[in-house]
């Protein structure tokens, strides 16, 4: 455990905790709105963003943000006008963007990209510029979520009712997709593209049985997520396992524990 003396470990912990704090409350809405697959598609598109960043020499975080925002906008447009079911569209976009990302990265031979670190995260490699982008994303994400909380909840419960009551439903929905894109961009370095959705979904699912109000569920989910990130990082340092997957495993164990505890109470 001597690794706790190193600065990079604390940087990793700070980044992980920050991402957990914004991902968990937003993830509550992903659960309530049944948009897990939507989140998954945005995160798959992140690899296309990484490729874009390599080609244009951008930091991967803003590059992924751009790719996720574009994919989100495309999804919203297609879902309103397409003849296909939305999960078909999501599946097409998720895998074609992921595949396109891999292909583009392979074509750019000048740069060697560690694919594994993007797919499963590399929190210990988070350095200066990344940290600023992540901090910015977390602050903006949390502020926007606080501002959007009530209208977003109203739209989640019943969109038509919210609209009659004066909520700008379309704007709120688009803002939510933008927030998801931000979380995907900041979470990619932590748990990796393939595991981002778990960071969004598992802590809220764990919190569900212990919350009586939406706010309580978001707060408990955030606490669970922070715990999972810290435990995963500790496990990673102790047993030399990859940090991102270790966090997700910790998160899943906490979820199982919550099932046992809530069954015991109920």
């Amino acid at each position, binding site marked *: 455990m001597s690794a706790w003396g190193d600065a990079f470990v604390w940087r990793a912990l700070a980044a992980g905790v920050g991402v957990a704090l914004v991902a968990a409350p937003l993830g509550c809405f992903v*659960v*309530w709105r049944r948009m897990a697959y939507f989140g998954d598609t945005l995160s798959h598109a992140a690899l296309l963003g990484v490729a874009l960043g390599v080609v244009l020499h951008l930091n991967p975080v803003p590059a992924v943000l751009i790719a996720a925002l574009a994919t989100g906008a495309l999804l919203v447009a297609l879902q309103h006008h397409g003849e296909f079911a939305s999960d078909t569209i999501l599946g097409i976009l998720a895998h074609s963007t992921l595949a396109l990302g891999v292909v583009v990265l392979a074509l750019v031979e000048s740069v060697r990209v560690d694919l594994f670190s993007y797919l499963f995260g590399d929190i210990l490699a988070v350095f200066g510029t990344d940290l600023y982008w992540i901090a910015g994303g977390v602050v903006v994400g949390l502020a926007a979520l606080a501002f959007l909380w009530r209208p977003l909840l109203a739209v*989640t419960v019943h969109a*038509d009712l919210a609209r009659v*009551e004066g909520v700008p439903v379309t704007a709120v929905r688009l803002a939510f997709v933008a927030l998801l894109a931000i979380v995907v961009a900041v979470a990619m370095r932590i748990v990796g593209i393939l595991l981002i959705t778990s960071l969004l979904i598992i802590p809220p699912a764990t919190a569900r049985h212990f919350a009586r109000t939406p706010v309580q569920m978001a707060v408990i989910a955030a606490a669970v997520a922070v715990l999972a990130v810290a435990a995963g990082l500790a496990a990673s340092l102790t047993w030399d396992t990859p940090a991102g997957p270790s966090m997700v495993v910790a998160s899943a164990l906490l979820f199982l524990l919550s099932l046992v505890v809530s069954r015991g109470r109920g």
Partner: protein
Amino acid sequence: MTNADEALVESRGVSVRLGERWVLEDVDAAVAPGEILTLIGPNGSGKTTLVRVLLGLQRPDRGRIRRRSGLRIGYVPQRVHVEPTLPLTVAGFLALGSRGERERAREALAEVGVARLLDARVQHLSGGEFQRMLLARALLREPDLLVLDEPAQGVDVGGQRELYRLIGRLRERRQCAVLLVSHDLHLVMAATDRVLCLNGHVCCRGAPAAVSADPEYRRLFGPLDREFAVYTHGHDHHHDVDGSVVSHTDQST
């Protein structure tokens, strides 16, 4: 037909197309202040579509909508499903529609007879309780117009009758207009001032008794003639005992 100047909301020549099919054709409808107007018609006759157009939730392909400026609408949609994963109390649900202190929410619930449910979980409510909660959320908007799309859905027959009486009382107390959607004439007619019978187009309109005698209406609802006779009886009965019934149900809820 109501004078155009005083209508709260009004459609003129509204037509809506769904793919190849016209679900609404050339519909004129208007809700006057303080009246209860009931939209009636078989399934798929365009009732909900007309309501959505009047509420501004859907743009008509032809025709236009006029709403009185500053009109406050309380809306009870047809189907509201709250995700089981969303922990929401009745108080929390009411706060989504209008910010306000608990006391106001409790008063609105009391007005619809379910004040005790303030801290109940939304997912634990019965069909009738859920509809009353929706009604309370609509009332908290201090509406000039209540729009109720099949408000008695998922409520047993006895509860339905009570619910329609409640709507009548709310109109009296609050002096608001009510636009009611129903496919069940028997229960609604007693509580309504005017009926608009819809089947893609406007079949007929007028006072409940006049509509029920209309040949168009009879053609549409012909097989129900026998039941309808039973209904007429109920209608008279309800009007005879109106006052006493009101106080009785107030106590029982």
